[in-house]
């Protein structure tokens, strides 16, 4: 089955940084704008599964992940259910990040309903 692959290390940076562009280099906002949103929206349009690989980087601040994934719903208004349906997160080095990302998506979805 065709699948869209996104790797933070290969497609963005080995050193993911803060939340917003103005806070420092390689921010979650930049990652979402340049890499994540274009690929995720393409996957949703074409109804393709997509895989986000978080391994291999120096490590993540929580804000980077929250802004990247939560922002898909909060800023770009993408469908929470469709993202859940088609997304696979790979994080073998830090397995707790998978739960964190799912929570960020859920929180953003619940906020958007208010």
């Amino acid at each position: 089955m065709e699948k869209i692959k996104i790797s933070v290390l290969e497609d963005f940076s080995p050193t993911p940084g803060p939340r917003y562009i103005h806070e420092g280099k390689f921010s979650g906002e930049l990652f979402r704008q340049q890499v994540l949103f274009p690929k995720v929206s393409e996957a949703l349009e074409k109804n393709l599964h997509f895989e986000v690989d978080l391994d291999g980087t120096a490590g993540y601040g929580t804000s980077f992940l929250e802004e990247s994934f939560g922002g898909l719903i909060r800023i770009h208004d993408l469908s929470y259910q469709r993202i859940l349906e088609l997304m696979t997160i790979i994080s073998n080095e830090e397995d707790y990040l998978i739960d964190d990302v799912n929570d960020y998506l859920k929180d953003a979805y619940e906020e958007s309903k208010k």
Partner: protein
Amino acid sequence: MKKLYSTRKYSINNLRRAKRSLKSRLIFKKYRKLKNKADLGVSKPARTYKRKFEEPYKDYKRIHAPENFSFIDNSEGVVEFISQLKSHFDEKKKVFVVLKDVKIITYDAIVVLLSIMVRFKASKIDFNGDFPDNGNARRILDESKFLKYLFQNFRNEDRYQLGQNSSIVTHAWKDVDSELGNELIKNASKTIWGTERRCQGVQRTLIELMLNTNNHADDSRKGEKHWWLSVHHDKHNKKVSFAFIDFGVGVFTSLNNKRHGSKFFGIVDKLKERVKFGNNAELLKLIMDGTLHRTATGKPYHGKGLPGINKVRERNQISNLNIITNDVHASLDKDLFTIMPKSFSGTFVYWELNKENLNCYGEN
């Protein structure tokens, strides 16, 4: 000309100038008389030595560093020391730091000393000091290059890097710098394991602290304050220690300053309704275990900020985590939260990376 000298305007000005001149001559005469009296019987070479070496800083305010100059082991003494320096900094008074009597100096205190020195010098306030008589304390100061920087001028800059090619390196900046974190971890892992490894816990800790400085050091002036980070490599014990400091407002003051619209606005009062706590030490405990975040958001805690750093410690990604902020010193490994008599306006965080801590193979 005669006409000019005899005008009323000229005679008033002349009288005023004569009075001023007399006053200053009398002051100098008094000073000279006292000086001659003090120098009576002292040879010329001895007088020159005294002028050059014994009293060059007589108009400086002398501030004594604590004998045990360790932020972790003597937090009260160091907070008092910082507080005295801060009040002189605010009043723009010249300062002479007396380090002569320091018996113990630990690596966590280096960041305090260097950051304060640069703040003074960058603000063009004279700052000087002497050196510890104790050999070990002097050696640690030497390693940090403190002595070299003591005689150097600093400009007010966004970024500082001190002590390159030394076992203690110090960095300061205002933004979040994930690349710097990565480099520091690479170097640290070489000291500990002999090869480059990735330590995501340390990277998260650094990013969260840099972000905290950027966002919360002073709630009204985001991104204006520096963070300071000193890293010490102990090759003998295969251990690297990180000491991070910002001179913002500290955790509790920051919480109290939250504005209407923030999810943390009035959080301390909300928390009081749900959980019993008596003082800031107990409040910090609730912050570190995520209770405060859960109360503010009504959601499970996702590891942000200071509690996120505690999670990193719980996962054994870092060791010996200590936090000093406002009037609380928390030693997380010992589960010890103590109140200090004097408050520190800022946040200090210390942790260590050793060979028992989790890490990942492979360069990125």
